[in-house]
């Protein structure tokens, strides 16, 4: 839905269709901004997102889909990975490397770093997509100064609550950080750290990855030790850590919506006309 243009300024020209810009970015990072005429941003976005993916593929030898056990290797298995945010690269990856050579082989020493980078590339492109959609929609002069919505959401992805902190909503950001990181730590404790392994929990890892830096730092600090004993609450821990990551999506949406609301002056949940009039009368 386009944001209403009440004060048309120099930015008021119709740049392009937001949905087309988003879809183009999904296929090729930066293509949406190229379509909107923002060449510099497009080139930087392409270089960063595809650079991360390429580096990740080089470090992991393109083997991340080989984490999946044989019974889970379907045509659409990659659709639930973070890499799907960079669809063009993922499709090329599947075509080029697929599920490997058909028999198990040792992972390269840099496998974990590589798969983290390909996942990061996919998530980063989601923010470029949301930025393309917003840039195409936002054709009015900003009502107030505020951090760009996609940047605010990206900050919240990096550290839960950080986008809210940048928006000067410190209390809200602190509560989000404490609750989500607390839930994640509880999950890691219950699972004995077994949740921090993409090879062991391919899809749960994807949900947990949405927690950003805390999840990545915890994984690299803990390493990927072999299981020495049965972990009683491993399943509960894996689920809780994944839920913490998925709840961070709500925090990212909150950061995005707040910035958009501040810039446009349009409330997130507009009240029905009759209701707001009634409240004014009562006041």
């Amino acid at each position, binding site marked *: 839905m386009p944001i209403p243009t009440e004060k048309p300024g120099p930015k008021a020209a119709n740049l392009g269709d937001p949905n087309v810009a988003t879809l183009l970015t999904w296929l090729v990072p930066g293509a949406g901004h190229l379509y909107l005429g923002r060449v510099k941003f497009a080139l930087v976005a392409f270089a960063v997102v595809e650079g991360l993916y390429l580096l990740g593929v080089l470090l992991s030898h393109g083997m991340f889909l080989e984490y999946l056990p044989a019974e889970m290797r379907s045509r659409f298995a990659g659709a639930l990975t973070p890499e799907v945010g960079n669809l063009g690269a993922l499709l090329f990856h599947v075509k080029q490397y697929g599920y490997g050579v058909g028999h198990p082989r040792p992972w390269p020493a840099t496998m974990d770093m590589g798969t983290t980078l390909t996942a990061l590339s996919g998530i980063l492109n989601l923010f470029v997509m949301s930025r393309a959609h917003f840039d195409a929609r936002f054709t009015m002069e900003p009502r107030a100064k505020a951090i760009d919505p996609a940047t605010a959401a990206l900050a919240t992805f990096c550290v839960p609550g950080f986008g809210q902190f940048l928006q000067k*909503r410190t*209390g*809200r950001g602190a*509560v*989000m950080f404490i*609750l*989500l990181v*607390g*839930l994640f730590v*509880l999950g890691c404790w*219950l699972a004995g750290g077994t949740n921090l392994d993409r090879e062991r929990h391919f899809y749960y890892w994807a949900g947990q990855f949405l927690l950003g830096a805390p999840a990545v730092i915890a994984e690299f600090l803990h390493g990927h030790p072999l299981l020495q004993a049965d972990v009683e609450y491993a399943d*509960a821990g894996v689920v*809780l850590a994944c*839920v*913490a990551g998925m*709840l961070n999506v*709500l*925090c990212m*949406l*909150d950061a995005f*919506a*707040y910035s958009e*609301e501040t810039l446009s002056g349009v*409330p*997130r*949940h507009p009240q029905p006309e009759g209701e707001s009039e009634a409240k004014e009368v009562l006041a």
Partner: protein
Amino acid sequence: MKDLPFHILLFLASGTVIVTISVMFSEADDGSALRVLPKRLLYFFAGCGAVAVVMLICEHTFASIHWGG
């Protein structure tokens, strides 16, 4: 039932986080979020309690029936 208090504690912890984050998402204003939070927590836990009761009733009735003897 093994470790029932621990399971309930885990459920309360995760449920509180889920409801609180959801409230912060749906209420942009901190004041209104704080106002609605207790009600939402109550609804969530009361709803989950009701589902648990129904499941226990089903478990103690239908599950004990031997169909076709």
